[in-house]
């Protein structure tokens, strides 16, 4: 067969240094006796879009009278030797476009994810399965070098292109040695030290075992049996919870932990009593009980102003913010909160009677409404701002008297009663009903929308308890999370004729 150039495709997004990497490869080739050509479409890349840089290398440039090769400007599916991807979905894209083939392609990819806008804007969890992406990519390639290059780059205070260049060296698929690679970086002259460090890590990681599955970062529930308490009252609750089946107990203990943190021991006791009541009902299985335990804990710890103030003023939170902003010693950190409590939230935080009165239209209501029309920036790092939230958090003692508590408590009780009832009819439907609590989340309009959807679904359940398939309820719940305007949900309800019968 005739000699062919070495063909390298780099798939990257704007700002990830794909162009720098391509230039390094060209310089590496040209400085070591190769003809090198690269092409790209940079306009797209600069603005976060996915793009391809393509490089071809051909030997013999330093021989006297060498004839220049004819090099291609775009990669051809099935005809690429090395594919480098700066992110996992881009590796998937390379495979999808046929650039990665089992007969010849070495795929070098970072395993970290930069989520697409579709993944990010979903109302629930819109992320695609990274393991599947990685699995398909590995399957397609002759050889795959994969590890989290973003993490390696961060460790070296460098950029991903330097790590990729290191991995390319470590893969030993190009006819150049490490020194030749390193000289290329040095010739570049910008950020040489950190680039070389990232490069070295890249070489090392490429030689180590590749990552074949992504590490899950989802926090699991802690083992209920290992839970302990300082206070005897808390210990009694734990002992009670530990009597449940393990999956239920693990969740229930987490629930207790959360509700004590949220309110007090009595509130956690109420939580257990509610679980007990459900456990005693006919048809209730472990799965229903543990899922209810999870959703009940979330619902009982609904997000009100008091909770937000509490969470925002903790020392642990201040430390987290410092870490995220990587504050060095000698630097001063200020934290500004963006809050917008509306009149509704203020009314709901007041004792029920007072809250209801303030919510009615009269002069005081109008004044309060005017005062709350705009969002506020509260500086929690200042004594004044901190005190405001700190005192608000202390109102926890009065929480049980608030309007919001009254409202939520009623909703919770209704929900639990419904679950008890449904368990006797169809435990699977009860389970899906329990999971509908997921819809109620957020603040302000988001909360109102979620609650509206939830109530719409509950009306369907109440109306059709005896004939509704659990899978249908699941589909309805997913439809409620499909769009902000509830179009999908309404369409599905209409399609399945689950709406309220027309009046008269």
């Amino acid at each position, binding site marked *: 067969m005739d000699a062919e150039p070495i063909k390298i495709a780099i798939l990257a997004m704007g700002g990830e240094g794909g162009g720098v990497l391509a230039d390094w490869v060209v310089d590496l080739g040209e400085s070591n006796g190769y003809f090198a050509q690269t092409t790209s479409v940079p306009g797209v890349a600069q603005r976060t879009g996915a793009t391809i840089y393509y490089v071809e290398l051909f030997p013999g440039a330093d021989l006297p009278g060498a004839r220049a090769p004819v090099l291609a400007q775009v990669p051809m599916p099935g005809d690429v030797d090395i594919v480098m991807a700066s992110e996992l979905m881009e590796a998937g894209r390379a495979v999808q476009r046929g650039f990665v083939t089992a007969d010849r392609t070495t795929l070098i990819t970072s395993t970290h994810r930069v989520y697409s806008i579709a993944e990010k804007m979903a109302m629930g969890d819109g992320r695609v399965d990274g393991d599947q992406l990685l699995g398909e990519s590995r399957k397609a390639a002759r050889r795959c070098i994969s590890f989290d290059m973003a993490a390696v780059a961060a460790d070296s205070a460098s950029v991903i292109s330097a790590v990729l260049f290191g991995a390319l060296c470590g893969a030993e698929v190009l006819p150049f040695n490490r020194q030749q690679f390193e000289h290329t970086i040095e010739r570049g002259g910008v950020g040489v030290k950190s680039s070389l460090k990232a490069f070295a890590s890249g070489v090392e990681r490429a030689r180590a075992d590749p990552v074949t599955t992504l590490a899950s970062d989802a926090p699991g529930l802690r083992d209920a049996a290992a839970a302990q308490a300082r206070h005897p009252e808390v210990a009694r609750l734990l002992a009670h919870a530990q009597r449940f089946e393990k999956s239920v107990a693990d969740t229930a203990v987490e629930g207790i932990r959360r509700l004590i943190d949220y309110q007090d021991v009595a509130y956690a006791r109420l939580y257990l009593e509610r679980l007990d009541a459900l456990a005693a009902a006919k048809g209730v299985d472990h799965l229903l009980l543990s899922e209810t335990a999870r959703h009940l804990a979330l619902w009982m710890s609904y997000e009100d102003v008091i909770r937000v103030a509490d969470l925002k003023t903790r020392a642990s*939170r201040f430390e987290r913010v410092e870490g995220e902003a990587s504050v060095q010693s000698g630097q001063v950190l200020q934290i500004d909160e963006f809050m917008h409590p509306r009149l509704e939230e203020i009314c709901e935080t007041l004792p029920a009677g007072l809250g209801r009165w303030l919510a009615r239209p009269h002069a005081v209501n109008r004044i309060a409404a005017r005062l709350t029309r705009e969002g506020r920036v509260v500086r929690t790092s200042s004594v004044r701002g901190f005190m405001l939230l700190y005192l608000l958090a202390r109102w926890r003692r009065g929480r049980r008297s608030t309007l919001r508590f009254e409202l939520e408590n009623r909703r919770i009780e209704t929900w639990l009663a419904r679950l008890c009832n449904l368990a006797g009819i169809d435990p699977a439907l009860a389970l899906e009903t329990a999971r509908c609590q997921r819809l109620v989340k957020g603040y302000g309009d988001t909360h109102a929308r979620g609650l509206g959807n939830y109530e719409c679904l509950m009306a369907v359940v109440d109306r059709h308890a005896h004939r509704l398939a659990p899978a249908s309820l699941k589909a309805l719940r997913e439809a409620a999370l499909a769009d902000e305007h509830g179009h999908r949900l309404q369409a599905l309800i209409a399609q399945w004729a689950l709406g309220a019968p027309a009046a008269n």
Partner: protein
Amino acid sequence: MAERSFVHEVQKLRMGAGEVFAGEGILAVTKALLESGVAYVAGYQGSPISHLMDVLSDAQDILAEYGIRFENSASEATAAATLAASVNYPLRGAITFKATVGTNVASDALANLASGGVTGGALVIVGEDYGEGSSIMQERSHAFAMKSQMWLLDPRPNLPSIVQAVKDGFELSEASHTPVMLQMRIRSCHLHGRFVASDNRRSAFTVKDALENPVRDVNRIVLPPASFLHEREKVQQRWPAAVRFIEERRLNEFFSEDAADVGIALQGGTYNTVIRALQKLGLANVHGDSRIPLYVMNVTYPLVDAEFERFCRGRRAVLVVEEGQPNFIEQNVAAILRQCGLATELHGKDVLPLAGDYNTATVLAGVRSFLERYGLVQAAPRRVIPLVPAVAGAGQAGVQGQAETKAALDALVHARPPGLCTGCPERPIFTAVKLVERELGALHFSADIGCHLFSILPPFNLGNTTMGYGLGSAAAAAFNVPPGSAPAAKRAIAVMGDGGFWHNGLTSGIANSVFNRSDNLTIIVDNNYSSATGGQDIPSSRADNPTRSTGHQIEQAVRGVGVTWVKTLRRTYDLKAMTGALREALTTSTSGPKVLVAQSECMLNRQRREKKLVRTALEAGERVVRERFGVDPDTCTGDHSCIRLSGCPSLSVRTNPDPLRQDPVATVIDSCVGCGTCGEVAHAAVLCPSFYRSQIVSHPTRWERLRERLRRGVIGWLQRADARRRDKWAVL
């Protein structure tokens, strides 16, 4: 200040004869202009020739050394009209812009230039933005060359050929008194390669000489009867002269002419692709030695009948490889064959696709099909899908596996189009429109060309049409009720960038809406640069530019053409002001056009500028404040409304750290530039209290340090007390 600086690279432009130049295609073209003794250069930026304008901009002192006048033209029409300098004087001039947008805008001037003809060489370098990565409608520049009778060069895509084409272009132009277009395909503009340089040449005659010694020839002016004369001159003198020059100078190339009795005639720009396809068929080697005869048209208009006759005579068949549609070349070849009485079979768009990118795989399939028909390659065995799956590991299983992989990936891999950058000042404008639409209902939204066109994508999903650069406002012109009828309940919104505004939007959009008593709103995005094309300065730029006059306010210009309802917002990030202004513009009872000038500097450019300043300040020990946003994971409930209203690349999601919750929480990643949109969105849309802003003060003042110690004392004491209480009741 452009996005990319070529200050270091332009030094290569000083290279002398025999030195090896290595670099980008664009830079090579600039070098070729200098070697050709060009006297003036002009152009308008846009992909893929933005870098050519940037190179010229950064090379102004070198251009000055050779007495070359360089203009950043107001539009492609301006650039084309600039070539008028070559009509009466022996001045070589070059202009550049993107095609086919630029050729469309410039076509009036180009047509008049081509009619009268030129004395000095006139070269129009068009960046052909066609195919993958293109951002415009897919059309061909070829039609413009044909209709105005200009000659079109499409050289083989390697730097020596491109450089040679520039030089040949000037000579061809002078030999035939006709402007010449040089087509640079997108991937060739950004092609890295090398060529052997020649010495730069200074024009013997300069623009100064022309100014001081004016010459006039009424026969060169497009006015009857001269224009009737021009038409005859074109076909009787200029065309034959051009064909003669092309033949004599062998601008088109024949390769392996006697290798087979079929051949391929191709546009020069597709040469590398055709060679690679032949290589894959075993019919060429890496150096381009082909076993199939090739006729490479480095000049794709006009065609040289005699050369075609030579290539086709005695051949059974010829394949024309011609990218894009309509297939002008193929049609022309058909006429030539017919007129020459040749029976050679003609193939082209019958084996190759009618439209779309001619990438290697596409050309390979077409060339294979052509050569199979004439027995030059074996027909590929047909793939049979067996009814019973083959044993695993066999070839068929591989094929099946590939299909499964593809199906899986189609679901997993999302499109990732370009979008607004982190901290882009245009984001809050669209967020504000979304918020106002919540109150007023959906509105007709006329988009324009520029970064702001990304509003059509998720999460904004705003925009009905885009009719051209600076035409956003004009494209909403029809949306006004006739006088005397009941007023419409809604108004249309048009968007225009500052680039588009100065390009033509001031007249075609704003003045037009004044004159025609439009009632619509036009938002002018004033971000200091022509940002989408790479951050070039324009009249309203606020930067000091030593060679250009900047600082001309858009509001003044708008008022100057008669708009009375004008508002300028100096900070687009102020979402409350933005929504307020939009609401007012859309509901006010004042009639006539409304214009909202939304000002904030392009973040991409601002960061490039400020990063350096911050680094210097930090090294000097000065007080520097860095801002970034964050999301508290324990108060975020994972609804992602914030992302749906912003779409910032820095605003992402991560696994919920709460073991009871499953939906991922929003998170702000390190690339955050602290523009403030997140906080403003949370306020304006009443989203959630999870957003916070951290201000990190480096090298704080003594007073700041003291205050910090006091605060920490008080806050820490309270926090410890609270922690003790929680500790007492904690579940461990």
